[in-house]
């Protein structure tokens, strides 16, 4: 899944919360950002999201109407799958509650338990 910037994530949140396709102006109205955004900024963000495959758009009159290309649940499932399967970055940055252990780590645990066993 291609990554999202912070503003892009906020725009996706607006599209997921909406029940119908939204125009740029409507997305802008529903965005709650610390500073008011320019119309063109939101348009660019939506255009980028379209390029990344996160949103679909259809022409309605003179403007585009945008919808999220997958539901929030689908996006969540995909994100989680990425986290669980990736062996690179996620493995190193995140601390899972029940993470897979490298042979070295299992070895440390096992030897530690044996040490106790040997003594008592």
């Amino acid at each position: 899944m291609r990554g999202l910037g912070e503003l892009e994530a906020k725009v996706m949140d607006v599209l997921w919360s909406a029940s119908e396709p939204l125009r740029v102006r409507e997305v802008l109205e529903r965005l709650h950002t610390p500073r008011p955004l320019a119309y063109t900024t939101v348009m660019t963000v939506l255009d980028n999201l379209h390029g990344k495959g996160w949103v679909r758009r259809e022409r309605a009159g003179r403007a585009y109407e945008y919808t999220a290309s997958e539901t929030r649940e689908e996006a969540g499932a995909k994100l989680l799958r990425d986290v669980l399967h990736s062996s690179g970055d996620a493995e190193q940055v995140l601390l899972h509650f029940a993470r897979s252990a490298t042979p070295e780590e299992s070895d440390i645990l096992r030897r530690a338990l044996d040490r106790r066993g040997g003594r008592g």
Partner: protein
Amino acid sequence: MTLALGLLMAAVVIGVAGPAYLCIAVKPSVRPGLALVGWVTSMALMVVAALVAAVLLVAPHAYVLDGLIGMRHSCVNVIRASGEVAWGHVARSAGAAAVFGAAGWVAVVAARLSWHRRRWRREHLALLRAVCRCERSILWMDEDTPVAYSVGGRRGAIVATRGVARLRPRERDAILAHEHAHMRGRHHLLLLVADVMAKALPFVPLCRRAPGAIRVLVELAADAAAARLHGPGPVRAGLLAVVGHGTPSTALAMSRDAVEARLRWLADERVALGWLPARVGYALAAVLALTPALVSIAIVTLVVLVYCLGVRPA
């Protein structure tokens, strides 16, 4: 000069023998947090000892500091004060250059790795905040597989799925307490430090083995913290519930081995809980980690004394 040699020796002893004596502390009767303090302190100590030694080697009049250990007037300083021997100067400069070079390399690796991880984290968190519901400072994901994990950093977060929310309350709370312990203990930062040291100085045994040991210890420390709050039972049940749901296709399925060990650990640890106040324990662990350094300095001092007795003109 004696102090500088002693500190260099201390850095080498800690770097080479560290894993051997630190692993002794990894056992169920010792609070995992203490072993964690021992590892982290030892790594910091090794770096500080080497850096101070390098400064002492090249700084003018640094031999005055040998007075701290009563070695100001030792013969090695007399030679230094009364006219330099060229090779001695070269050797000292080379030693210092090696240490400073290594320190610079560590800094470069640290900058690269932390930048890389920070970027990954920022993107991941942005995605999470879009996809998840935030409730009681936890990001909840609509997924039936019970999964919980934490993202470190200043704006870090704990992520849990609907599958976790549906567990029994005590199990759910134990799992979340485990993740909170990671955040409170800054475990992600400790892991970053260990990874940086291992990547920069893989030929030093203490650094090479740090990531593995610290990964194990932070999990055990978080388990222990959760067990102190909710009792070992719910932590065990939580672990089993999370692992039990892992489908073979996910990485979770591979964790059974480690989880087995953690379960046995939790069963043993009840004996160890609370025989020492935590703060006292941590201070004690830090002091114990200092011991090899002090012993090294003492041994070098002794060697220098013996050497000086030998070279004294009859």
